[in-house]
């Protein structure tokens, strides 16, 4: 798994590549919470277009990012969900809780 960040116009986009599972979800969590709690970036966007699989620990990291953002009145957005990623969010009844878009253009124009 690789994660990199792009910064523009009060927005940070995290580009994630690879599977998110127990081996690397702490890295995702750390990056997200730093961006939200320490930097207080107004809009944090997760590009999951190249993430084929997310396990429950990955979902937990995304939920932590969402909750931290809500606590600070910031926005937390996901886009590019694979079928598997969409399924786990549906199974955990979180798909409607997150702000989800199909692609980056939609996410940034929202």
């Amino acid at each position, binding site marked *: 798994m690789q994660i990199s960040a792009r910064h523009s116009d009060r927005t940070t986009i995290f580009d994630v590549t690879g599977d998110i599972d*127990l081996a690397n979800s702490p890295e995702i969590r750390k990056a997200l919470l730093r961006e939200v709690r320490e930097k207080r970036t107004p809009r944090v966007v997760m590009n999951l277009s190249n993430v084929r699989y997310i396990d*429950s620990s990955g979902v937990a990291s995304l939920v932590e990012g969402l909750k931290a953002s809500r606590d600070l009145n910031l926005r937390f957005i996901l886009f590019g969900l694979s079928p*598997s990623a969409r*399924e786990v969010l549906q*199974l*955990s009844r979180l798909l409607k809780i997150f702000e989800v878009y199909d692609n980056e253009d939609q996410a940034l124009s929202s």
Partner: protein
Amino acid sequence: MRQRDTTGVSLPSNDGFLLKLELLSDPKLLFVVRGALERLTEVFGFSPPDRRSVTRAVDEALTNIMRHCYDGRTDQPIELCCSRVPPRTPEQANGLEILLCDQGPAIDPAKLRGRRLDEIKPGGLGLHFIRQSMDTVEYRRVGTINQFRLVKYLQPSTQSQTP
């Protein structure tokens, strides 16, 4: 994901045994096991959503073993054994049974229920994913071994795809 051509791939017809993996409790190996399960479920004849379900359930069960049974230690043994099992009723199709064994301390069955989903909070989702994904989820203690048994049955309409 690219579809593989499994035409002509046939599973052995013996006592049902298909695959056995022995691995250490290192999260870096989850990726490897997922790869094996994705291929096995494909050859077994599951639909793409059911392949993802079975792979997800096994991945989450292994994650639970690594986190809770072995408390994060990465050098402990886990055994995964996959077999074909007969249908439970004449109307059903064959199933894929996955037995996961570890040597961690015994588990309180009360902790295997999973949490309610009406609260938005991180954690506790793994068991829910497993129960949602599989037809049978059982735990038993056999001597000093924790044994998790997961079974997923083929949908009757996909039975013909099974070699």
